[in-house]
């Protein structure tokens, strides 16, 4: 049994652009994470991510202010040409990244063999849901931190923490995957592209909006109708698992309603468990989102660190996060699991 001392978790924030990186660092992020402009990371979206020069500038900006830069290399190397994944790892070292966030054993082996000094964080895409799974990657590849899948309850998170010496990072805020990360191919079933093989889910290129005669709108991925909106209904991006479907003649959100994860209220518990870092989701979101969400979390973590007994989420914090929550809903997500 490992007794992690209560600690103040590091705040790890998303950077889809150099501007977002600067906003996160200036708003108080302890670390930012970013990816290259290609399929080597799980937010491979047009118009975002970093080239070499931008990484250099971002590392300089972060390091000058005492913040770390983590590089996400968290898709699975392509059998036809794994070299871009290995080159990306080389690049992380050359450009001064503080750690690499990895999911593929092929990439981890490359780092172990060629960059033994490089700090490795196990990506959520590696789906390590137990201390045994984390130990597998620590023994073989020397991972120093594991990002836990969002499916775990807080009791399960505590159980993992009690049994591993590896630092743990949990998601704090952002879009919620209801499926275990790294184990979902719903997107490639419909579009050919998935988080594992292309770094995308429900890619924009496959989205088709069609007006209906009644004034409503159909949202399709390729040819599959993901959701059908009445004329006055608010419309959301047709992420496959968040659509409405028919089950036994009833139309419902059969997999997941559009919701956001928010564990702001759980900060003291996460500190007690000994969680090392809290991650904010959203490299695809705007710099303004990153700035505002980072500021809220910085303030809350600092307040909890100063006086845990009297910690509570303020109405202003709740309102600020509500503005950015997908579907304008909040949930404590799987960490509390009201549906268990």
């Amino acid at each position, binding site marked *: 049994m490992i007794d992690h001392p209560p600690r103040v978790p590091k705040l790890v924030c998303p950077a889809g652009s150099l501007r977002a990186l600067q906003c996160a660092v200036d708003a108080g992020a302890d670390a930012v994470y970013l990816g290259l402009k290609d399929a080597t990371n799980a937010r491979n979206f047009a118009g975002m991510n970093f080239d070499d020069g931008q990484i250099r500038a971002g590392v300089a900006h972060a390091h000058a202010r005492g913040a770390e830069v983590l590089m996400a290399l968290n898709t699975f*190397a392509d059998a036809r040409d794994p070299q871009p994944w290995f080159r990306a790892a080389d690049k992380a070292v050359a450009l001064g990244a503080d750690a690499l966030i990895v999911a*593929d054993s092929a990439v981890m082996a490359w780092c172990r063999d060629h960059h033994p000094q490089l700090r490795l964080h196990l990506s959520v895409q590696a789906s390590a849901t137990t201390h045994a799974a984390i130990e597998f990657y620590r023994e073989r590849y020397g991972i120093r931190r594991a990002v836990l899948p969002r499916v775990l309850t807080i009791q399960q998170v505590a159980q993992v923490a009690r049994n591993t010496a590896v630092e743990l990072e949990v998601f704090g805020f952002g879009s919620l995957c209801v*499926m*275990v990360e790294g184990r979902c191919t719903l997107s490639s079933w419909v579009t*050919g592209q998935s988080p594992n093989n292309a770094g995308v889910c429900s890619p924009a290129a496959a989205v088709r909006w069609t007006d209906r005669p009644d004034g409503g709108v159909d949202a399709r991925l390729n040819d599959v109708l993901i959701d059908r909106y009445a004329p006055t209904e608010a419309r959301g991006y047709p992420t496959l698992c968040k659509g409405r479907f028919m089950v036994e003649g009833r139309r*419902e959100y*059969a997999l997941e309603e559009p919701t956001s994860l928010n564990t702001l209220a759980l900060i003291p518990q996460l500190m007690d468990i000994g969680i090392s870092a809290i991650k904010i989701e959203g490299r695809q979101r705007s710099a303004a989102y990153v700035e505002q969400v980072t500021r809220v979390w910085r303030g809350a973590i600092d307040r909890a660190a100063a006086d845990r007994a009297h910690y509570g989420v303020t109405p202003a914090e709740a309102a600020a996060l509500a503005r950015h929550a997908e579907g304008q809903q909040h949930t404590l997500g799987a960490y509390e699991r009201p549906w268990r």
Partner: protein
Amino acid sequence: MTSMTANASPHERIALTVGPVLYHWPRAALMRFYADLADSPADTVVLGEVVCARRRELRLDDWIGLARELVQAGKDVVLAAQALVETEADLRLLEHQGEQAEFAVEAADASALQLLAGRVPLVLGPHLNIYSRAALVEHAGLGATRWVAPVELALDAIALVNPPADRVCTPAGDPIATEVWAFGRVPLSFSARCFTARHHGLAKDQCGFRCLADADGLAMHSSDGQPFLVLNGTQTQSAALQCLLGEAAALRDAGAQRVRLSPCAQGFGEVLRDFDAVLNGRAPAPLALARWPGLGVPVPFSNGYAHRRPGMEWSPS
């Protein structure tokens, strides 16, 4: 265990693996299903509950008893590990699977790899993310005998990961065999949440085992009536059945020495016989495909993943 050779000649038999039953069938139905398999052309049978720890029609001892009977009938048997390992009880089950010495275990996550490597022979199951040769090399070191490719991996990629002429080998020098998902609804995702219970308005811990009623899963259609997915407790499957019956040559070119057939509630014995007759004999695929729906085999079929297309697409060969 089936012998493995470095090169898959055009006439080499493609072995048939019956995957684990992914649905919640009552004990009697499971026993009947496996009794029927004893006289089938299946070479290998994978036994165990992969999807949900709450399903306990058979316990580990029951599975092992069944496994021994199938061995008596001449089958190679592998025990299946649970796909999503979350609790200490889940980890204990893996420990118990590692304590027996009779059967290989098919690993489905890194917890299984950690707890079983070096203790029992391993099969690298389809839920492990092995997408490149370098990744298979990493896993070969764990004592694996066989690799079941991830469902979304195309045949051209499978050929590159474990080429028929240059197979990845274990440290002992044994070549790893490739197995390809060739029949059945495709497991596309896992969640801690039970979608069947959610549909019935029940909490997971008080689910009433409603999934017992869905022998082939609970159908989920798009709003315009297209069969799309199937809810199977915490697992989400495709509605279409991936079917590579007509792709014997492509399978051999990709180095597949075995195919995996995932059980369905009706007609599965005929499916097995047809796969054997088509892949290893001279029977034509279209005749079998036309016949299956009449036997209660679910439709439609798909083969997009095999050809680097969206998985749900179907192009008859």
